[in-house]
């Protein structure tokens, strides 16, 4: 049986603000399927976001939803979770939201290993504000603030998460919808901080300016399809062969002490003294 999306959407909020061809909707549907599969009580789910096109998602979802300030979603979510650890926290962010303005919060949320799931809708651009360069814009690509080509190599969300200590880290794309659902599901059921780098497509503000690669938003999905390399296959290849490729897969899945549990253990210990 398929998922009844109606059950999870605030349909009176439709139509949504996303452009046709935007793949943030694909990620939204994968998230809904993952939540459904995890059988979470809707009343106990809190979806938090920052600011940007991606961050508009919670408004369309029938949960407790918190649309915060640019980059700060993880910090708000940390407060909610610590104040009531029974709640299931899911954070959705754009790439700018997550690793530019929210970079500090990203690092410390990974390091704290607090039980929540972050889905980065990584479209390599600032969509909402009209296509300015983001930290994940590919080198040489055109954006409205890198009209002669973006300088420097992009931030790798997965490497950043691994380096900062997130205990579940995965990446896939909006093309790989089943894998996307499965990784988000794994992130949700994982006890600890999980990061899913969900590669998304923004033709309006990004693809359109980079016609050498994309003539349409479908091209952007095809690009994801043709250039994704699974992590196990990637291990066999040298760095040159992996240039411009999207490495997908689960990069880490480990169990480490979780922040709220450690806090509650500490409380029990001092109270029994």
């Amino acid at each position, binding site marked *: 049986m398929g998922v009844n999306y109606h059950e999870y959407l605030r349909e009176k909020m439709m139509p949504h603000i996303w452009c046709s061809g935007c793949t943030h909707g694909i990620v939204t549907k994968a998230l809904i399927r993952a939540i459904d599969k995890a059988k979470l009580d809707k009343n106990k789910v809190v979806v938090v976001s920052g600011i940007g096109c991606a961050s508009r998602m919670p408004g369309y979802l029938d949960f*407790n*939803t918190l649309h915060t300030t640019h980059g700060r979603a993880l910090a708000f979510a*940390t*407060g909610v979770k*610590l*104040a009531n650890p029974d*709640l299931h926290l899911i954070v959705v962010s754009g790439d700018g939201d997550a690793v530019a303005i929210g970079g500090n919060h990203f690092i410390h949320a990974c390091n704290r290993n607090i039980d929540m799931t972050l889905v980065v809708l990584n479209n390599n651009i600032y969509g909402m504000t009209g296509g300015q360069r983001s930290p994940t814009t590919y080198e040489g690509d055109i954006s409205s603030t890198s009209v002669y080509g973006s300088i420097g190599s992009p931030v790798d969300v997965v490497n950043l998460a691994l380096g900062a200590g997130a205990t579940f880290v995965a990446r896939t794309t909006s093309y790989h919808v089943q894998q996307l659902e499965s990784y988000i599901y794994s992130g949700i059921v994982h006890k600890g901080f999980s990061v899913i780098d969900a590669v998304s497509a923004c033709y309006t503000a990004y693809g359109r300016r980079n016609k050498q690669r994309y003539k349409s938003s479908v091209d952007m999905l095809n690009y994801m399809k043709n250039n994704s390399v699974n992590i196990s296959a990637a291990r066999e290849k040298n760095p040159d062969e992996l240039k411009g490729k999207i490495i997908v897969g689960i990069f880490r899945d480990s169990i480490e002490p979780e922040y709220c549990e450690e806090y509650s253990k500490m409380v029990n210990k001092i109270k029994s003294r």
Partner: protein
Amino acid sequence: MADIRFIQGNEACALGAIYAGCRFFAGYPITPSSEIAEMLSEELPLVDGAFIQMEDEIAAMAAVIGGSLAGKKSMTATSGPGMSLKLENLGYACITEIPCVIVNVQRGGPSTGLPTSPAQADIMQARWGTHGDHPIIAVCPSSVSEMFTETVRAFNLAEMFRTPVIVLSDEIIGHMREKIVIPEEGEIPIVNRKKPKVSPEEYKPFKGEEDYVPPMAAFGEGYRYHVTGLSHNEEGFPIQSGELVHQMNVRMHNKIYKNLDKILKNEVYMCDDAEVIIFAIGGSARSSKGAIRHLREEGIKAGLFRPLTIWPFPEDELRRVCSKAKNVLVVEMNLGQIVFEVERVLGCTGVRVDGLFDSSGEPFTPLSVANRVKEIIKR
């Protein structure tokens, strides 16, 4: 037996928070406020509360809002540089009407300024620091006891009006040690936020009741509503209609400005026959009180008007108290901020308004205040 202690203002603030029902604190260390975080890191676990040190003040303010939405009375504490960072999400708490308490133990500025010395230079920042039209409540303790009681009052006001409340203290009050009698349980009434009485289908999280304040459900209680920093309708969803946006802003303004009788609080000291009235808050009010005693001994009729709620500004009461005075002297540890507000209010009453300003980081001596009073009445 009464619980009598000899403690620091910051410690009294932490104890007041626990007394008021605070069960969540998120902060980032900064002098001269750190003792509040330190003490709460020790006290909160003992009452099943949560404490977290965040990566910066932006995150701390965000976490506090999250904690409050999850149903816990929440607080953060900081000083100048940290207060500047809190402002972003303070505005978010204003527009989303999240009860919470922000303590600013003021130090010298601008920027890193004088980390270990007092100042009162964030008074206007407290009022207007975050962008956009927004009402705010700020309370000003003037003793260790008041660090306790004003923190309790700040929580009560935050809960009553679904709003952030600033405790605007200063390094003098935060770091001084004084005797304090800890109030017994029940001695100070504790206010808890209104909860919705309707079903989730009928609940409008941003629809004010007669007092303009909307009831607030906690996340997880089954109400599943949306919270956004965008201008929103009564259901909490973003709107574009200018008329509705204006209505929302006006209701939020009314929530504070039509409930002034519940918010304002002043100390009026020896003002009945006073010819000169000193206007001062926090640490400066203490030196001013000392000055008034000297002046009275010399036969000069001086009094003190000390707002414990500085925002909203006590316009009517200030006008009433000063109606028979000839002079008002505003004493503040900055280069002149609240004096303009006093001038605005007393502008056409015929009372002459002067100031005594200092940004050296040294508290005023009673003598320096008394001398300034003598100077202005001689003219």
